[in-house]
Structure formats: C-alpha cells, structure tokens
C-alpha cells in the first residue's frame, strides 16, 4: 500500500477501475465470453483426449502422432486467443477483428514473439523456483529453531 502511495498513481488507479468497470465487464464482455468459450472448448477437447488416453492404456504410433498434432493445434489456438484478448483490450474491437489483427501481426514476426514468450516464461519460472527455494530454506530453518525453543520451554515448565 505504501508503495502504491509512494509511486503516486492514484490517477492510474482510477483509470484502471474505469477500464475495469466500463470495458472488461461492459462493452467488451461479449468478446471476453467468446474468448472464454474458445479456451473452454480447447480445455474440453484436451481433457477428453487425456481421458481417452487413460482408458486406452497402450496407444499406437498413429494415435500418438495424431494426438501430438491435435495438441499443437490446441496450443496454437490458446496462444492466439491470449493475444487476441490483448488486442481487444487495446482497441476495443470485436473478437474476430482482433483475431485478424493478431494473425497479421504474428505473420510478420512469429518467431520473435514465440521466442520472447517462451524465454521470458522459462526465465521467470527459474527465478521463481530459485527464490522460493531460498525462501523455503530460510523459513524451515527458522521454524525448526522456533519449534526446538518452544519444545525446550515446554519441557522446562513441565
């Protein structure tokens, strides 16, 4: 809270609420619904695929190949939908118009986009794991110490 106040962004905060109230749940809610529907279908297809996999046991080579193709298509759709939502947030266009704009943008520089996405994702994951490990070790050592102390105290009073 102090940090927010320090950076002095009250105007941005109000703008943000404006955006949130008037766009995401206002004019663009239909776009959100459509995007959500697309992602929901993707998830549904994926879960059906996994379920079929679990029931089947040992799948054949062709099945694995087809599943890999389907999975990559699903991932591409999800990727495109996320960027489409971004476009819709900026321009306020409909889902289809945003999707076309996204498509045109990705046609020009797909590789950069994907690479930056993947690398930043992985970098953040690595950083987070490392920091969490450090934090966890600190917490564990601290709590062990605390527990021992309390145990000794209990013994003492008993």
């Amino acid at each position, binding site marked *: 809270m102090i*940090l927010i106040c320090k*950076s002095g962004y009250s105007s941005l905060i109000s703008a943000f609420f404006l955006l949130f109230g008037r766009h995401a749940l*206002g004019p663009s809610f239909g776009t959100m619904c459509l995007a959500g529907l697309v992602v929901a279908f993707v998830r549904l297809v994926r879960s059906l695929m996994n379920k079929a996999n679990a029931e089947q046991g040992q799948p054949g080579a062709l099945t694995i190949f087809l599943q890999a193709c389907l999975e990559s298509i699903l991932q591409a759709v999800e990727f495109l939908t996320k960027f489409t939502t971004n476009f819709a947030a900026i321009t*306020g266009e409909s889902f289809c118009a945003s999707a076309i*704009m996204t498509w045109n943008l990705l046609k020009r520089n797909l590789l950069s986009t994907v690479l930056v996405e993947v690398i*930043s994702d992985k*970098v953040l994951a690595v950083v987070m794991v490392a*920091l969490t490990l450090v934090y966890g070790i600190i*917490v564990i050592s601290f709590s062990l110490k605390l527990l021992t102390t*309390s145990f000794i105290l209990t013994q003492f009073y008993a």
Partner: protein
Amino acid sequence: MAVEGGSSEYEGNADADEMKEPLLQKTGASNGRDRRNKEGERAINVPAAPPGDDDGASAGFGYNYGLRPYQDIAFSVIFVLMLLASIGFGIYGVVNSNPDYEWIESAHYEPDKGACSVPEHVQEQFGGGAWNQFWLHKNKKLLLNSIVAQKVSGSAETAVSLVIAITVVLSAPFALCMLWLLRKKTKELVYASLPVFILLPVALNVTWFVGCQRDVECRRNFDFSAQLSLFLFVLLVCGLMIYVIYSNWDRIQLTIRVVQTAAEALYQNLTLLFVLPLLSFALIGLCTPLATFMVYAYTNGKLVPNPDILNHPQMPCGRGTDHPCCVWEPAGWVVPYLYLSGFAILWAAMITAQVQVFTISGTVAQWYFGRGQFATGVAILRSLGYPPFKHCKSTVAILCNICVDDAISL
C-alpha cells in the same frame, strides 16, 4: 502526475542500456528522438514496414480512449442465459431433492415388490432423518475434536501457526523483492538462468546414464546401444538448444528489455496485484452455489433395485458382498443439467482468466501509451505498431500471474 514519477527512473535505465548494449540493429538515426521511446524503438528487430501498406496494426495503432461500441453481444447473452438456466434448474433441484438419497446405505430391498424402501426406524435415528442435522452432528464432533487437540498440543501448535503467519506476512515483501530484482537486475537474471536451461537437462542426462551403468538390473534390461543412443540424443537436443540461443541472441536481448518493461509496468500499476485476486474470489463466489446446486440436483431421483440383481435373482446382495441391493437412479433431467452446469462453471472460469488478461493488458496499455504521449509523432507511430508492445503485455500477464501466485502460495 503518475507518468512523470516513473519516467526519470526510466530514462536512467535507458541511459544505462544505451551505453552497455547497442546489440540490436537500430532503424535509422535515434539521436534526435525522445529517450523514453528509445526502448521501444530499439526493440524492433524487424525492419519497419513502409507506412500505409498495412492492416491497421501499424499507423495509428494505439490505446482506444474513446467510447467503445458493444461487441459480440450474442455470446454474452448466451452466457448469461446459461448461468440463469443452471441457477434456475439448481433451485428447482434443491426444492425437489429426495431425502431418501442420504439413506442409500441402509435401504432395504423387497424382492416380492421389486422395489427399494428406507425403513422408518433408520430415519428416526437421527431425529427426523434430516441430512443437515446429521452433518451438524458430525461437524460438532469434528470441531470439538480439533479444539481438544489444540488444547492438548499447546505450544507446538502456537509455534506452527506463528511460523505460518510470519511466512504469509513476509511473502508480500518477498514478491516485491522479486519485482525489484526483475526491474533492476533483469540482465543478470536472464543471463544466470540461460545456462540452467542447458545444464539441468545435461546433468539429468548424465545422472541417469551413470546410474544405469552402476545398476546391474538396469544394465541387463536396457540394451547398451539403446542407452548410448538415448544419451547422445538428449545431448544433441541440448546442443540444438545452445545453437538456438546463440543464433537468436538479439531476441534474448529483446526478452531482457521486454521483461524489464513488464516489471516496470507492474511496479507502476501495483493495484493489479490486489485486484486480480478479487476477480478470482468473485469466480469462487459464483461457482460455489453452482457446485452446491449440482450436488443437490443429483439427489433428485429415486432408489431402485440394482439391475444386476434383477437380472440374476440368485445373486447375494447387501452387506458383505460387492453388490449393493439398491442403487440411486437420478431423474432424467439431472445428467444433462450436470453437463450444462459443469460447462457453465468451466466457461465462467475461462472468462475470468480472459478478463484478467484483458485488465492487465488494458492497464499496461494505458500506462505504456500514456508514457509515450510526449514524444515526437513519427517515433511514436513507428514504435507503437510493433512487437515490443505486444511482448510487453503478454509478459506482464505471465509475470503478474506468477507474482500473484507467489504471493498467494507462499
């Protein structure tokens, strides 16, 4: 105003960057341009397309501050109808739920009638047979047990809860510290984590190979040539990864700048960290009644004799056997309702995720475009239509999610 607060630091960053790493190709003279735009400008690694040949993504592309028309109304109507339908049927299900469902364990099969019934005395055992009272009874016991347990174990419990409280309290500074690292030490972080992508698979590969060599069982079952080929294949993939990183070095520079911008954007819009969880809570608030309705809807129906028993009358049933005498048959509308309601919940969850992305994008876009609005016209138009902006948002989306997750999970 807000924008000036961030800009001085930003210029400092840009200055430092400029001296250290002119690795990306620059498109034309950048001296006369505003510094704040330089980052976006230098991040372009695709030659600028001539203005006017384009699909509206380059010239004039920016945050739409104007009045926005309602889009894709049909889908929001469908969603609202679906929600209303599942809530309506859910209320119907609660009203018409069959109390026999909770006594399915003690249901009695009457072969001569070919029907199942619940004996009266079982229902009276728990005072009228109300499900709620039964649960209350159970919960009271649980509550009592937990209180007793707390009193008994005493100080150790206190210590544990203290540790948990401290951890929760400290996780906020921890997340902020991570944000600070990402803002100030982006380059170091990225350079430090790049080797991990290579070294971790290589280390795992060597570990299993050596482990397999030592283990007699593994050596017998796994052909040596196959082992060697798998080992070499993984090494080859790692080599390929090194090549990809080397050949896309400029894109890694781009990533560094994008992550830096994203962290800066998140820092300037810290409210996001508080509002996005609120959205998740709203989703939970919506889904909890729906899930409850689903449970109640299933209790609409009746007890019927197990069809297996009807087919084989000699088969034993009831206690001590695998076959229950009576099974629950939900009413005809229940299964479609469960599908409908389940899909509504899934859809609502996905919409929440999209709204989160939308909010992040919109906020960051306002910040980003607001930041650049003092710069000279041409520079703006050229920098805005191009990828840095897009990357920035998607990265912020991930970053935000991770930070929020971090703050919540720790």
